[in-house]
């Protein structure tokens, strides 16, 4: 690990919901204030602010990082917005890490926020603006198409039964029953997922996470500041490794069955953490659990393979057999994920990074994994299917 040692010392979350009364700025204030309170500090102690939020098209307010600055606590401070589509929520704490590791800042406040309910009547028209503008938009695509194409390719390549993929919706929506931010925690059966409305075969309604409004914030500090503030180490999660990677936007010239960019991002993070053996068996022992990005149920599996946590084509059966349940050998998405907690884009991946912190510090309440957890991973994905962002953290007392 290069640079200064950096720890995450607190998180703050709002509820996730289909439509919030609060403005984006007000949501950002809620989560940012909560993160500061939980760290026992105030805005005066902060020397850098990072904002993560996805397409401006949802808000109809351009350059919304400026708009979000007040709520995120960022005015009159070095404030920046990083934006890598759905990958943003994990990229923002990565930016927090490098702004402290570099020595530029000692205490950073990071806020990921999304309000998707503003665009009428649905967010789909906003999503259209991310498709290629010359040879794709005139075909009248819907964002669900592209996931359906990728899911079909993945299933076809490995001969994956739909039931195996559907089991991820059952697991994650069930886990979300224990998450206080969750909008869609529910007990479901595989049959209910399989029999839900077909939107774009093979994608059914219950394969998809719901669009949402919400915000998640973090405080990250240098080791020196953690000592100075007297923050106990059992409230700290150290950044162990980070990685991100972007593939070509010419997505029709890539085999969608496998996310190579996620592999590259993951290996970058593992190597940074000193973990050079990338075999699935070793990595599943090294990591106690994972929060891979799950906007669609198959994506959790697709990403577990890209992350090298399961061999190619092997994640679906493992999920179906319960290996990735919260109380099993290798818990995956103990939070309930985007499928269950909700998908306010940047905040959704922020929620996943927050879950890694909460699990490592024993603050996950009813969601706490019933075994010792020493190291966890959050991963997000986005742009038009070509960016992977990976954050590995370890417990405050783990060497």
């Amino acid at each position, binding site marked *: 690990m290069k640079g200064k040692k950096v720890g995450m010392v607190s998180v703050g979350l*709002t509820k996730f919901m289909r439509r*919030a009364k609060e403005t984006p700025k007000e949501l950002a204030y*809620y989560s940012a204030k909560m993160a500061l309170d*939980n760290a026992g500090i105030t805005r005066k102690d902060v020397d850098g602010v990072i904002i993560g939020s996805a397409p401006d098209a949802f808000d109809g307010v351009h350059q919304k990082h400026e708009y979000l600055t007040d709520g995120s606590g960022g005015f009159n401070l070095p404030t920046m917005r990083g934006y890598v589509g759905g990958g943003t929520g994990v990229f923002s704490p990565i930016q927090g890490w490098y702004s402290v590791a570099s020595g530029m800042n000692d205490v950073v406040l990071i806020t990921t926020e999304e309000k998707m309910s503003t665009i009428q009547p649905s967010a789909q028209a906003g999503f259209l603006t991310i498709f290629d503008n010359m*040879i794709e938009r005139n075909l*009248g695509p819907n964002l669900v198409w592209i996931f*359906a194409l990728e899911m079909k390719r993945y299933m076809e390549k490995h001969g994956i039964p739909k039931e195996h993929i559907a089991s991820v919706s059952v697991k994650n929506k069930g886990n979300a029953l224990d998450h206080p931010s969750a909008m869609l925690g529910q007990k479901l059966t595989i049959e209910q997922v399989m029999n839900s409305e077909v939107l774009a075969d093979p994608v059914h309604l219950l394969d998809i996470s719901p669009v949402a409004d919400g915000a998640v914030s973090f405080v990250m500090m240098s080791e020196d500041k953690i000592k100075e503030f007297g923050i106990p180490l059992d409230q700290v999660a150290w950044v162990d490794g980070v990685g991100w990677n972007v593939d070509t936007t010419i997505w029709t010239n890539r085999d969608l069955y496998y996310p190579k960019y996620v592999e590259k991002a993951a290996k970058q993070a593992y190597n940074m953490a000193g973990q050079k053996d990338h075999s699935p068996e070793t990595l599943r022992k090294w990591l106690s659990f994972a929060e891979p990005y799950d906007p669609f149920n198959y994506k959790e599996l697709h990403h577990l393979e890209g992350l090298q946590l399961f061999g190619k084509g092997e994640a679906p059966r493992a999920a179906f057999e319960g290996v990735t349940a919260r109380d099993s050998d290798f818990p995956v998405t103990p939070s309930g994920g985007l499928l269950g907690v909700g998908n306010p884009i940047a905040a959704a991946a922020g929620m996943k990074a927050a879950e890694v912190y909460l699990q490592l510090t024993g603050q996950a309440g009813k969601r706490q994994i019933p075994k010792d957890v020493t190291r966890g991973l959050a991963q997000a994905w986005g742009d038009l299917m070509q960016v992977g962002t990976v954050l590995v953290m370890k417990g405050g007392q783990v060497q």
Partner: protein
Amino acid sequence: MELRGTKLSNDEFLNKVLSVTYYPELDYAWATGVAITKFLNGLKEGVIYGTKCNECSRVVCPPRMFCEECHTPMNEYVELPQTGIINTFSLAYIRTDATRRDKAEIPAVIDIDGTTISPSGFLHLINEDTPHDKVKVNAKVKAVWKSPEERKGDITDIKYFDIMED
């Protein structure tokens, strides 16, 4: 600590609380650049173009002005066959605006013949009258064009792709 955020129902939002509305009118006209202009002019003439990289020898579609691998010029345009295979597809009942249609559209990634990497091609549609049991990954397809008078240099100059019978 109590999590905050105030949930509004659809009814509350539409009928009971204040909202401010705005309908943006934004028109865009994109210059189609060097390579895609060649591609779209080709479609107008009923031809599918790819490009070849002089450095790595890849032949790819859609054409590009530079090779994204070698980062060198890619200026040798190659006329490709009007056939390919379905790399992946979907039976889509959802339109751009999220409204539903009763009959599926069939978007697919068409891996165009004559390219040297797989897949290499573009997003298009399979004839929606095709019986669904005939639409398969790796099925051979051919381009079905609009009439020359109707073509205007747009991706929709190809009406759709039809499955080729063996």
